[in-house]
């Protein structure tokens, strides 16, 4: 059964997450700047950017049609709805049902579908190149998601994100290892899906090398704001997945639970920043291999778990 949370807290958390998402991107950028020895922009800079974009006029390509106009709201709302399905730390998700992680993956898939089309809509080779890359990497990223959450569903015997998270038996041997390794798979996924180094360089200025940024090359004004906010929501979404998994709430009091939850988010931001500082971007042909590593980690994980049980 699909249950809508009657607890107003869950919906309040959802609104907080919507508002707070750019902060996570801001924190990542701050960490990055500090690691590079710069002082860096304020952690609130993403908010200033969003406001600035919203107040600018929109420029549309003459080649574009209805897809370009429809895509930004749709990309934003699919990502936001996906966030609604997630348990955020000690708070249960606002919507929960058996198999909700399938819907989550497919909602993100819908957003990707329409974003790729929007990139193809403006008749630009650059954007189509980015779209092609996005489609290609998604082919390898989606199985990782299903592998990770499918194996967790089978291991815990539960099918909704909420019950999977609460069904993790931290006191049993092997369980903590299983969850931690699964989180590493999700972290790989996060790097790919959120266009982070070493898969994509969010700061690049060369159209030929970009993936996500090149797809929104012709977006501007309010449209670009929606895209940017959706991107920060997506980053938050994967971070939430990891921090909800790595949280033995049964053992902690709520305050410690929230502290740990926020702590994991900050640590993830630091990890992203460290990787972006220390590593160069992969050549594009290496990205599928990078994703296959994540798959192999997942396969070994479930094999070890199955055979030692």
């Amino acid at each position: 059964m699909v249950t809508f949370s009657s607890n107003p807290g869950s919906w309040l958390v959802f609104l907080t997450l919507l508002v707070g998402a750019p902060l996570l991107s801001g924190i990542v950028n701050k960490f990055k700047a500090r690691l590079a020895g710069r002082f860096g922009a304020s952690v609130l800079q993403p908010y200033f950017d969003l406001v600035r974009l919203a107040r600018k006029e929109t420029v549309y390509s003459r080649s574009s049609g209805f897809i370009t106009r429809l895509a930004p709201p749709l990309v934003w709302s699919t990502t936001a709805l996906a966030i609604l399905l997630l348990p955020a730390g000690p708070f249960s998700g606002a919507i929960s049902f058996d198999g909700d992680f399938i819907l989550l993956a497919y909602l993100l898939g819908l957003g990707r579908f329409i974003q790729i089309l929007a990139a193809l809509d403006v008749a630009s080779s650059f954007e189509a190149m980015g779209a092609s890359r996005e489609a290609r990497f998604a082919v390898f990223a989606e199985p990782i998601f299903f592998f990770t959450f499918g194996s967790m569903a089978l291991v815990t015997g539960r099918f909704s994100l909420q019950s999977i998270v609460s069904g993790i038996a931290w006191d049993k041997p092997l369980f903590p290892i299983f969850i931690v390794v699964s989180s590493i798979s999700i972290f790989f996924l996060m790097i790919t899906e959120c266009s982070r180094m070493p898969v994509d360089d969010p700061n690049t200025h060369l159209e030929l090398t970009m993936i996500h940024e090149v797809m929104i090359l012709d977006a501007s004004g309010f449209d670009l704001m929606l895209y940017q906010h959706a991107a920060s929501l997506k980053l938050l979404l994967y971070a939430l997945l990891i921090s909800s998994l790595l949280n033995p709430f049964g053992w902690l009091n709520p305050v410690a639970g929230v502290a740990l939850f926020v702590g994991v988010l900050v640590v993830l931001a630091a990890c992203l920043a460290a990787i972006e500082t220390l590593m160069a971007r992969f050549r594009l042909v290496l990205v599928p291999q990078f994703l296959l590593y994540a798959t192999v980690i997942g396969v070994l994980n479930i094999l070890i778990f199955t055979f030692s049980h």
Partner: protein
Amino acid sequence: MIGFFILGLIIHAVAMALPAVQRHDRVLNRAVNLLNTLALVFGLIFSVNSLLTSQLWDARWPLPFVGRIHLACDGITLFFLFTFQLLSLAGSVYAIGYLEHYVERGVRIRWHLMSFTLLILSLQLVVVVQHALVFLIVWELMAVSAYFSIVLEKNRPKVRRGGFWYLVATHASALFLYVFFIVLHDRTGSWDFADIASQAGWDSGTLALLLVSGFLGFAIKAGFMPFHSWLPNAHPAAPAHISGLLSAINIKAGIYGITRMFMFFPTGPEIFGWALLAAALISAICGVWYALVQHEIKRLLAYHSVENVGIIGLGLAVAWLGRCLGAPGLVALGLAGALLHTLNHAIFKALLFFGAGNVYLHTHTGDIEKLGGLAKTLPLTGISFLIGAVSICGLPPFNGFISEFLIYKSFFQGGNLMGGLVPLVFLVSAVGLAFVGGLAVACFTKLYGIVFLGENRLKLSERPGHEAVSSFPVLLGLATLCIWIGFAPGGVLRLVAPAISQISGIPTARMGGELIAPLDGLTPVFALLLAMTLLTLGIKVWTQKRVGVRLRETWGCGYQSVTARMQYSASSFAEELIKLGQPMLGLKLRWKPIAQVLPEPRVFKSHSYDQIEEGLWVRLNRTIGHALMLLRWIQSGNIRHYVLYIFAALIVYLIIAFVW
């Protein structure tokens, strides 16, 4: 209520006879298709009513030579009957406008209309007949009428070749079915499906023969890999309404057969379920990967039918395994996914083929690389094609998601029920399905993005409204069905419920709570998605009104003289994914590297071919051909030799009869 169905069949018969008396093609086209439409409306009244009220119908009619034949409308039959009638209805209405263009070009369509009607008629009969001999006759009628419908433009070699592929495949299928039913008759002593189903205790050798021949027979028809090669050849050869129906319902006759096998072997061996799972997974993955390579719209869509038949097969396999395990809930879940996907695929694939037909009418080419920007010139085709494309990728909130969701769920539930390595196998299957989903997204963004978006690559007339207006009700109707089943799956699941109940043994009354209610819960989630999108869209439009909107050229990194031909092509879009599937996908590149400082004009050609088609079937055909050449001396052409053969054969028979 059965009266409606019989009335429908009679009207079909009248429609078939019409070409004999009316010689004016244009009048004939409208009359026959409208009569068929009317007949199908009557048929639909019968099937929907029977499904919703669970009124099953059973009769034994006397027929000369064969004896009393069993006709029945049980849950399985009614569901497939409903699917066939619904899509035939769409096809008949679409054909009115589409065939008009053939009439204008002076193509004679009398025989085509006759075979088209026979195809619709025999497809309905094939599911009703419960008598093996008559089933085979009707099956053959269906196969042959489909062949004649495909080869409408028989003057074109490509059409004849595609039609021939179909003819060979369908007879290979029939050959295995002869074996299947003759062995069944031999062991049970009856042609009646009901008697066959009540037979228990097969010895393992017979069972193996039956399962293999039955599965092969139906799998060739359904287009499982590696028996899929007729699909990508026959679909582009046929006119759009026929290719739509081939994919939507003709291959589903094979799915019907496999579903019927559930009834024949109620205790069926587990190994068949695993084999089906493997075959289905291979079909799904290879089908979509091959689809990615294609440059021809209909060929691409045909490979997607292979993929979707694989997805249906996954659901059927889980149901089969669930029954071996004694888990009726799992049977219900797997079957619900498989049968609903059968209906869903029929709807969106017909929609896509009809959309492709409109593209063809407008541009006279099906080559993706030459098209572009059609969403502006064909707005309605563009939007309905988009809905079909999103649906076929299994994305919410459309119908494809519902059936794939059920199949995913059946994998996870099945993994939970079974022990040992089974959960791992199911997990891998679920991941395979996700992989297929990712490839389907790549494939349909390529198709839609290149054909309908961007700028026109050909110099075509830019004026809008050049669409086949008579196709609008069909496209809109099918697109609405995609949305409606996605948003409110409960209604359609009630139509699948009798079939599920017949196989799983769960009464229809209990289906509501276990199967339908969790899916109906998705409606508010999708409504929320819609509300959020509309709200954001509203805010966006309102803000843009205040701060302004400008139209400019696309950013070309400063390059000024961009032409439409500089756009990304479909081959480039899919290139890297094709490279990754390289040993499996055949790809021939013809080009020379640029060597001089001042380069001369260069040609680059890439051509993809199907390894299974070329490496297996064409090669096999050639080998058999060579082997048979050795026996050519028998056909001397001299009548005296033939008399001698007959005489020798007679003597051999007599000796055998005498000795036995």
